[in-house]
């Protein structure tokens, strides 16, 4: 889980509003980055090189790409649609604000903004996002354990693949630790059985060889030959 202060992307074409929001957010303990319009905001959100954003503060009336278009693009993008978006709007733009909330915006903030309300709404959105992030991480780790079971059946299980999940202090972590132990016991038992089978095969092979030798040495012909060999040895020794 992230321990960051909260990374807020402020999308606002007014210089004064950008300055005010950035400074206020930073004084309140958040990290703020700025975009002048929807195009720049989307480019920043989609760029793999920028630090991920936790909450978007989005003005409605902007040139080039307005708040509606930007919000719509964010909600249509599977990689971004989970982001909380707080609309910044003038009081007389309530219809616009309602429309944005129907489009998926999380909350709204009136201009000129009240700093205490800004902090409260940003904090609430951050809490919601962090809860969702924890849930997604949990589901991903459940999938890792499920895949480990499939891998075990296919004799392709790697115990180290469960290390991260096993570090959890909850029931899923306990499941991962138990799974690793059971899998390790099972693999050890299989190895032991393979070893025993190998040893038994060696014994069987040796027994077969001994039987074969006995079959040969038990024949009358072999006994006759052994008798002749004994006589020859005595002649040579005398």
């Amino acid at each position, binding site marked *: 889980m992230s321990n960051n202060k909260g990374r807020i992307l402020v999308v606002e*074409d*007014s*210089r*004064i*509003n950008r*300055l*005010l929001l950035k*400074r*206020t957010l930073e*004084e309140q303990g958040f990290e703020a980055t700025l975009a002048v319009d929807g195009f720049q905001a989307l480019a920043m959100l989609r760029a793999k090189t920028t630090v991920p954003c936790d909450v978007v503060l989005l003005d409605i*009336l902007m*040139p080039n790409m307005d708040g509606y278009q930007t919000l719509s693009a964010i909600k249509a993008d599977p990689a971004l649609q989970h982001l909380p978006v707080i609309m910044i709007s*003038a009081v*007389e733009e309530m219809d616009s604000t309602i429309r944005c909330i129907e489009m998926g915006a999380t909350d709204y903030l009136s*201009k*000129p903004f009240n*700093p205490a309300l800004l902090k409260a709404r940003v904090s609430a959105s951050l809490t919601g996002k962090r809860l969702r992030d924890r849930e997604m991480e949990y589901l991903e780790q459940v999938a890792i354990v499920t895949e480990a079971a499939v891998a075990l059946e296919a004799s392709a299980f790697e115990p180290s693949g469960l290390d991260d999940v096993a570090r959890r202090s909850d029931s899923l972590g306990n499941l991962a630790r138990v799974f690793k132990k059971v899998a390790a016991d099972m693999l050890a038992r299989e190895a032991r059985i393979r070893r025993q089978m190998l040893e038994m095969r060696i014994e069987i092979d040796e027994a077969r060889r001994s039987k074969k030798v006995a079959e040969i040495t038990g024949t009358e012909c072999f006994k006759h030959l052994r008798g002749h060999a004994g006589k020859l040895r005595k002649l040579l020794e005398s």
Partner: protein
Amino acid sequence: MNSSKSSENQSLDLSKLQQLQEITGGDPDFLVELIDVYLEDAPRLFATMKDALSRDDAESTIRAAHDLKSNSLNLGATALGAVCLEMETRAKDEKLQEAALLLPVAEAEYFRVVAALRAVSVK
């Protein structure tokens, strides 16, 4: 922060400026920076409104009035913000002639705001 001129108080809500200083932990440089940006942007926005009104361009009028309104309210220029809101509303209603009649009112109020802000900056 205080003002010795009553017209400054009428054009500027000094409590808003006080709030801006509190937001930044009492940083006077930040307030000066805000005022500078406002005084840089306002003439451009007025010019845009004039040009848009002369061309009957409602959308550009709305955007410029909206921005000037927002900037003015942020710095406590409540009266100027109210005039800009009226202009914006009339432009949205396609009543550009009525919006144009309000332009001199906005300009007169702006000059009072400038005087008040400059007095604040000096202090």
